[in-house]
């Protein structure tokens, strides 16, 4: 029952979020701030994780390639396909749910408990539109860039680890990366990313915006935001995969 109530409340929240901003100039200035907060500040963590996990994927694949019938470029192919299909869009989004989701929920939650949101409302500002829309748009616009960056670094990490371990040559690895490449997989990955970005920021904003109480409740709402957006990502991932790859 509570879940249904929350879904209804979340939907009503979205109707207030997606209204025309009072002043476009203020919206764009907030959007640029959010692109920095949500997007650019996530580049280091995404880069670091992608490089190392790409390296590990390549090493694990190479270590299991004992069958002589398998072509040597398989390592590159598996690194490419697992990175594009699942690792970059889904796993990196789950990591971003932790980083961005907790940040958004605690920022908005703190504004709620310190009456800053009430102050906006009393001034006649649509607080949901003012606070949440730039964050959602920043996530929708910048998450695909983060994921493309993650894909590139993950494959680069795979190459570096193979070179350091002397397990294959650059030519063979690149041949694997290019083998059976399906451009639609990029479309699939970026579509997922846009949906995940929207879910992470909107769900986290929901938990922050409707928090009641004090600092402990802000902390709890932040945790709840990360858990709920992670679950939403997993469910959306399953549905989108069914819709985009299997139908």
């Amino acid at each position, binding site marked *: 029952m509570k879940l249904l109530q929350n879904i209804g409340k979340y939907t009503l929240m979205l109707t207030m979020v997606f209204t025309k901003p*009072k*002043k476009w100039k*203020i919206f764009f200035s907030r959007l640029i701030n959010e692109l920095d907060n949500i997007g650019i500040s996530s580049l280091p963590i995404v880069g670091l994780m992608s490089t190392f996990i790409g390296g590990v994927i390549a090493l694990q694949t190479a270590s299991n390639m004992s069958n002589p019938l398998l072509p040597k470029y398989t390592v590159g192919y598996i690194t490419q396909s697992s990175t594009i299909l699942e690792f970059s869009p889904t796993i990196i989004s789950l990591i971003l749910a932790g980083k961005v989701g907790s940040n958004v929920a605690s920022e908005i939650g703190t504004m709620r408990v*310190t*009456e*800053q949101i*009430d*102050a906006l*409302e*009393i*001034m*006649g*500002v*649509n607080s949901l539109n003012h606070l949440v829309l730039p964050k959602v748009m920043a996530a929708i616009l910048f998450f695909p860039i983060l994921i493309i960056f993650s894909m590139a670094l993950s494959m680069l990490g795979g190459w570096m680890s193979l070179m350091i371990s002397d397990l294959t040559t650059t030519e063979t690895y690149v041949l694997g990366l290019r083998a059976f490449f399906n451009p639609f997989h990029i479309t699939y990955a970026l579509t997922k990313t846009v949906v995940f970005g929207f879910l992470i920021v909107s769900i986290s904003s929901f938990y922050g915006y409707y928090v009641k109480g004090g600092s402990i409740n802000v902390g709890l709402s932040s945790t709840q935001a990360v858990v709920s957006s992670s679950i939403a990502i997993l469910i959306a991932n399953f549905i989108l995969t069914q819709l985009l790859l299997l139908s």
Partner: protein
Amino acid sequence: MIEVKHVNKSFNGQQVLFDINHQFEKGKVNLIIGQSGQGKSVLAKCMVGLYEVDDGQILFDDRDFTQMEHFDRSKIREEIGMLFQGVALFDSLTVEENIMFPLTMFTNMTKGEMQKRVDFCLDRVNLSGRNKLFPAECSGGMQKRIGIARAISMNPKYLFCDEPNSGLDPKTSIVIDGLIKDITAEFDMTTIVITHDMNSVIEIGQNILFIHQGKKWWSGDKDSIITTDNPEILSFVFASEFMKEIRSIMQEKRT
């Protein structure tokens, strides 16, 4: 003028406000007083639309706020300034940006015009030159004054102050009370102050509403509160020996 007519409000089946009727007069400092948990903050939050009333009317110069759609309410809210109990300044913005915020949001002023207005408001609350400070760098009294400066930046018709003296020393409280009284007269606003501070009641109470058990229990001005025999008022306003003594001195003066 703000008029409250037959306002009732309950939370989860428990009634908090019972048939409140009152007129808050223009150009005067209107006080809402009462013990904690009697419903005065709830009444104020109903008046600014943070809570929906169960029934009744809230009229801002004959415009019924309770019947308005969100867009029309926004129009009224642009005419309201509010000083919150916790001040509610935007902590990531400087003093200047806080005061400028409503101006950038609702006016088409140029940067220069906004700067002039910010300087005027800061000067009005005796904080000239503090433009670039962040709220966290200001004392409690300064934050209250910045809150007042932000509240008056749009030349509001209605000013709400929720416990403006909470957490302040007596001397700063007097400064804040004086400031509220002066700007109310200067800008001819309808000012509503929710307070526990008995000094404020005596100093600035031009129209006082006493709420007890969620009901309008008594109303009058600062002179009539001295002479009233209402037992609830007496036990609330003149609770301490010191206040009782003040009351008897003031009554003696009158006779």
